[in-house]
């Protein structure tokens, strides 16, 4: 019997060791690194000081970066919800084979690198040589190229495009759990199509929308490739800022402080919103 009890732990040991080696240890080292000192000529000094944290919290430059990061993440979340929820609803109402085909169209982009997808946006709107800009200018619709590269708008649009599948999938999963007769039940009681969506469907898929929102928010706030391509070094967010500190300024401790702060802020936001969702919908959906 003792052996039986130990078996699950023994069986999960390899995975635990791997998890510890590639996640926990580097994370702990990054946290430790954020307390070290750094100087232009002396390099990294393994001491424990609050200099980096003090800098991150007092310098308005960092505040601006973090504020921009969360503003972009929030707008991306709203945009994916506004576009993704109707998309999932329509998808769910399609008949086969169309449903399968369009599900593939929605999920297909996940098979393509984020870099490739973001570069696509750059090709379409990148300054005066972007294809769409060129076309619109030659048609006389616009006189100067639409500002897209190095703008927050561009970053929001590209991130929303990249992260849309996650929202659609979360909402679609919630729609799948709906009683297939529930809309008919509402219609039979006299509800019009708009009322059915607003009063019957939306409240029931709200947990799905919110969990999709949490996923999209977390991914948008920590995204690196898309902000790096669209924003470059001109328009930085928290993740590209940490990257810059590590690889360009070579101030690893400061970069570590930025990265750890981003991680903590994200954990706080994700845990708080999940709690809120669970509490709000516990007695209704369980």
């Amino acid at each position, binding site marked *: 019997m003792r052996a039986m009890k130990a078996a699950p732990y023994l069986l999960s040991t390899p995975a635990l060791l791997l998890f510890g080696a590639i996640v926990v240890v580097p994370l702990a080292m990054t946290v430790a690194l954020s307390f070290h000192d750094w100087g232009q000529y002396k390099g990294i000094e393994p001491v424990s000081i609050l200099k980096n944290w003090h800098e991150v919290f007092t310098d308005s430059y960092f505040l601006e970066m973090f504020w921009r990061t969360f503003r972009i993440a929030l707008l991306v979340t709203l945009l994916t919800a506004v576009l993704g929820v109707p998309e999932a609803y329509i998808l769910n109402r399609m008949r086969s084979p169309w449903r399968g085909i369009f599900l593939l169209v929605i999920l297909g982009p996940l098979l393509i690198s984020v870099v490739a997808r973001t570069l696509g946006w750059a090709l379409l709107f990148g300054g005066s040589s972007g294809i769409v800009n060129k076309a619109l200018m030659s048609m006389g619709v616009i006189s100067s190229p639409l500002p897209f590269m190095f703008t927050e708008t561009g970053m929001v649009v590209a991130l929303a495009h990249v992260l849309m599948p996650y929202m659609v999938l979360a909402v679609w999963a919630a729609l799948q759990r709906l009683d297939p*007769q529930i809309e008919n039940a*509402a*219609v039979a*009681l006299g*509800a*019009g199509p708009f009322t059915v969506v607003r009063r019957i469907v939306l409240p029931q898929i709200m947990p799905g929308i919110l969990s999709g929102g949490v996923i999209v928010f977390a991914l948008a706030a920590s995204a690196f490739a898309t902000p790096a391509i669209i924003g470059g070094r001109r328009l930085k967010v928290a993740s590209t800022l940490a990257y810059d500190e590590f690889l360009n300024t070579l101030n690893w401790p400061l970069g570590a402080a930025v990265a750890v702060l981003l991680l903590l802020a994200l954990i706080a936001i994700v845990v708080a919103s999940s709690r809120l969702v669970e509490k709000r919908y516990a*007695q209704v959906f369980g």
Partner: protein
Amino acid sequence: MAFLALEGLTRKFGTHLAVDGLSLGVEKGEFVALLGPSGCGKTTTLQMIAGFVEPTSGAIALDGRDLLAVKPAKRGLGIVFQSYALFPHMTVAENVAFGLEMQGVATAERTRRVAETLELVGLGTFAARYPRQMSGGQQQRVALARALVIRPQILLLDEPLSNLDAKLREEMQIELRQIQRSVGTTTILVTHDQGEAMALSDRIAVMNHGKVEQFAPPHEAYERPATPFVASFLGKTNLVGGTTVRPEKISFAASGLAGRVKTRIFQGNHWLYQVDTPSGLVTVIRQNSGETMPGEGETVHLAWGTT
């Protein structure tokens, strides 16, 4: 013209004829069951009345008006779905009030009618609960209350009791019948359960392959089945020497068709026999009156009156 008249109702799904020229007249206040095996078109018929499925051809008239010209949301029919389809994010009272709200009934009147209807189905104290906090039988009552509160011209029941266990189903059958009697709403029940159809309805429409094989009161359909299908679907039957005989009409006698008891099953209030005879296997049901009954392997003689 009947209160609800279905005339030549046909529905094709691709090349499959789900409902094939069905005509049926339901009188006001009547309880009618559409009975048949799965795929016989009974649910499609119900959905055409409700407006969720459009007929390929044919007509439906309710109280002399063309029902097909009315949008599903405006038909004002009460429907109880097989899955109940309650709104999980609303309390019982909100579920029941939804239809009244859609009709624009004033709040005070709405509250009064919701309370009244919940009382009718025996759920007066459950108004503030959410559906998932209730048992299957209670959810079923909420669904019934939600359908009845709008005072529908017709109540449509789509296999309403099939998700309940046997004991609860029997209780609900009695209750459903009493409620329907007291409210007097014309009711159409779709079911594959012949016992349920016979227990509840004034008339049964036995359906097969999209057509009505017989439309008659339960007793008549059982005693004088119009087609072999009706005979076999409504209760058990034996085909002995070209005539159909109900198992409970056969008795053990001193003389008659000789046979050997193949199996004997005790079912509490009755015995179920399979008797091997020269004209095939015959099913016999005998009431349990406490007497000793022939055992397996014994030779018996079967007799029945001619009808």
